[in-house]
């Protein structure tokens, strides 16, 4: 696959634009997965996928044959997602409908169902988790998603985020701390 990808890249650089379609078809699902996990919604994830493959095409001459195209476009997608999540407008959308009661330290989730009685505990936990994730900074969220959900090593995370390995580890650590603190009331209830 890797050798095949490299030969496709060479063909694209030689002027065969259509060959790029094969790379897009092969890697778009993996790129969508990580984009969705970081962005948190399908619409943004799909835009990230488009942006990542477009950027990759535009920078194809800089693609080093040492790595695989899949890894390379994955990193580009994480960066696109990081930029998108870091935008103030996006953050504001995430926080819409969210309220926090400082006295009881419980998280109130915006009702997504007309009948509150039908909201199950599992769904509440999952929604609270989503909200807690949105409270993380873009870097913390990215680092946590890559480590906890995508199971990438600290070295890979550092490389993707363009930071030192220790900084990547600290980002994951801060995310873990914040998530545990945010979700502690729910664990008590459960």
């Amino acid at each position: 696959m890797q050798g095949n990808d490299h030969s496709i890249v060479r063909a694209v650089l030689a002027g065969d634009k259509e060959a790029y379609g094969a790379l897009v078809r092969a890697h778009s699902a993996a790129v969508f997965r990580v984009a969705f996990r970081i962005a948190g919604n399908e619409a943004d994830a799909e835009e990230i996928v488009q942006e990542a493959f477009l950027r990759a095409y535009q920078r194809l001459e800089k693609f080093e044959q040492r790595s695989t195209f899949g890894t390379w476009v994955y990193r580009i997608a994480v960066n696109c997602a990081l930029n998108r999540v870091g935008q103030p407008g996006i953050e504001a959308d995430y926080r819409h409908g969210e309220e926090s009661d400082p006295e009881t330290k419980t998280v109130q989730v915006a009702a997504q169902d007309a009948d509150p009685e039908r909201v199950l505990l599992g769904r509440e936990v999952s929604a609270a988790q989503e909200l807690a994730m949105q409270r993380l900074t873009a870097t913390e969220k990215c680092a946590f998603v890559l480590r906890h959900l995508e199971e990438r090593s600290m070295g890979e995370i550092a490389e993707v985020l363009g930071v030192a390995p220790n900084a990547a580890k600290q980002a994951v650590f801060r995310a873990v701390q914040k998530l545990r603190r945010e979700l502690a009331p729910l664990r008590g209830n459960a």
Partner: protein
Amino acid sequence: MKHLSEDEQMEMYYDEGSEGAKKHLKACRECAAEFAKFKRSLDAIKPEEVPQRGPEYGDFVWQALRPQLIPYEKKAAGWHGWAWWKTATAAAACMALLTAAFIGGRLWEQRKSNGPDVAGNVETQRRVVVVVLTDHLDRTERLLVQLNHADPQDKAENAQLQTEARELLASNRLYRVSANKEGDPALAGALDRLERVLAEIANDPHLTAADLERVRKDMNTSGVLFEVRVLRARKPNQEGGPTSAKGVSI
């Protein structure tokens, strides 16, 4: 015994813990209980279900992307092709041409500098010296004129004279020494008399009206002024400089 920090627990959770931390966790019940809690809390954070994308998704992305892509220019040949040799040969020819032009230029410069340019440089140097000396004599003349017509009661004017005299004194010494070395006794003598006047004005800590008057009379500043004017008129003509010196109206 030092218990595991949250940071170390996180490392343990992600299988990045040190050997020491692993051993401690096995030995310490307190840490083991704490780590179990830590593990439960992180295990609870489950990945959100990613919406499934069918096999046609890749096609969908490609169709949306395709119109935005501009094809790369076709490369006729790679690094090993004929085009590379043509480029390399052209580059080598350019380098050779540049080197030849550089060496030729250097040789031409060297040959040229052996000729009349040396004399030209000496001439230029001499002109610079004459201009500098003329400037010194100009300033000195102005000072002596001011001295001869100064109001003895005007303290501000006297202080200005003294400042100017101090500045001129240092340069005057240099010119006098140079004139002596060059064997120009007329210039050296005039500069010597001038220097004494300048020193008298410059070095008096409390220059009074009476002092100025004394300098004027005792040192015959009018006579020194005349000598300076003669020198100013003489020097440029001798050295081939401007024939008419700038004068100062008295």
